[in-house]
């Protein structure tokens, strides 16, 4: 339960980070919060030759909400998101998701960039970001590029990050005012990764019709999945229970779900439907209440 030896490089700014990645690339692992990397190193699941510690790159730690966009630096700790007033006001989904991430002691270290780079299938923040309209900004010596979440997370533990790149920033386009969010998760114990989780944000136009609906699920799905067909099917007039149940059934039937010896595929699909239906109801009812007021 002790990590194998490695060469430790601590960088103090983005320039040094970019050069260190250019020099060591695939042999190196970036150490941000370390809440997944260090246990993996303790178990020797990974034994990187070089560890590049970016915890002193203060310029990557910020939450900046302006107009319709919130920008979150890659080194922003989960606890900062949990405690952020602008985010909980304008992007309640992320605040709800982050409260399901492990425990406070882990959230004090774990970072936005770290959870994205790992892309663990049951992780909450990637699901919230996949459900909202989010871009990820990546940087390397070769330059900067911007990817939508869908092009960034490719599958379980699989992303578009190259060996010499790091995640710089996450950009979320805010849901419209009056929206309601719901994040529903089933896990074995509080703080565990999700067996299944669903994220929904709903908002209404002036006539009270659902004109903004975002829905996503994770857990047994590889990458988190945005359910665009369901969003279209349920927009407009409020769905009754029958129409909602049918859409949920179709949406979960259409996605790829993996089973394992703890949770077989049909069990996961069953739980996915349950959490999705609850999140849809919460968000749709919540947005109604806001419209009336």
């Amino acid at each position, binding site marked *: 339960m002790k990590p194998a030896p490695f060469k430790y490089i601590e960088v103090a700014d983005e320039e040094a980070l970019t050069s260190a990645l250019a020099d060591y690339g695939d042999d190196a692992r970036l*150490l941000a919060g370390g809440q997944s990397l260090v246990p993996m190193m303790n178990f020797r699941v990974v034994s990187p030759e070089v560890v590049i*510690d970016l915890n002193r790159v203060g310029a990557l730690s910020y939450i900046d909400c302006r107009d319709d966009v919130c920008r979150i630096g890659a080194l922003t700790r989960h606890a900062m998101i949990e405690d952020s007033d602008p985010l909980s006001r304008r992007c309640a989904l992320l605040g709800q998701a982050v409260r399901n991430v492990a425990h406070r002691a882990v959230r004090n*270290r774990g970072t936005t960039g770290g959870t994205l780079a790992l892309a663990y299938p049951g992780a909450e923040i990637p699901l919230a970001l996949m459900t909202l309209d989010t871009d990820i900004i990546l940087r390397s010596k070769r330059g900067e590029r911007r990817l939508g979440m869908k092009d960034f997370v490719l599958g379980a533990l699989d992303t578009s990050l190259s060996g010499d790149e790091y995640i710089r920033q996450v950009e979320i386009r805010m849901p419209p005012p009056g929206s309601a969010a719901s994040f529903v998760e089933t896990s074995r114990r509080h703080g565990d990764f999700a067996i299944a989780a669903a994220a929904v944000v709903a908002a209404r136009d002036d006539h009270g019709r659902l004109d903004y609906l975002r829905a996503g699920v994770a857990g047994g799905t590889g990458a988190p999945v945005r359910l665009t067909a369901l969003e279209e099917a349920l927009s407009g007039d409020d769905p009754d229970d029958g129409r909602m149940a049918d859409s949920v059934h179709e949406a979960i039937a259409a996605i790829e779900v993996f089973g394992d010896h703890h949770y077989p595929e049909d069990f996961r699909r069953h739980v996915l439907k349950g959490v999705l239906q609850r999140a849809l109801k919460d968000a749709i009812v919540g947005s109604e209440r806001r419209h009336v007021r």
Partner: protein
Amino acid sequence: MFGERIALDLEVNGKPLSGVAEPRTLLSDFLRHNLGFTGVHVGCEHGVCGACTVLLDDQPVRSCLMFAVQARHHSITTIEGLAKGGEMHPVQDAFRRHHGLQCGFCTPGMVLTAVDLIQREPDPSERSVREGMSGNLCRCTGYEGIVQAVLAAAKDLKRQSQSNRTEETQ
């Protein structure tokens, strides 16, 4: 790479200390073995049990999920730093009164987690205490006493800060 050792300065329980560690040395091991803070209990070594919890710049963290070199120029509080002038911290005292420990292995992590929980939420409900403490495991399963102790400590600390305020205004 083998044998590389890095000198580090840090503050533990208000005192500046220094030491030397390999990059791979976990903060938990460094605090226990190099600096002698044996109140840092090492349980699972993958961030699940919470026994090794310490305060890093007043925030609880798992010391088994940090390398010692990362604590350079930070201030750390271990369980040894809570009692002041021979007086137990109110959270420690509440754990004693409410039978919040049996074997005591999980206790340092429990107490430090509770100190932060009460600081962030001075008047916690039982539900939020259970949720806030759920990242710390007690294998004696003495959770009832632990929850009662944290609730009582929150009340004690509130009373204490209120009476301090009254004294100040008098």
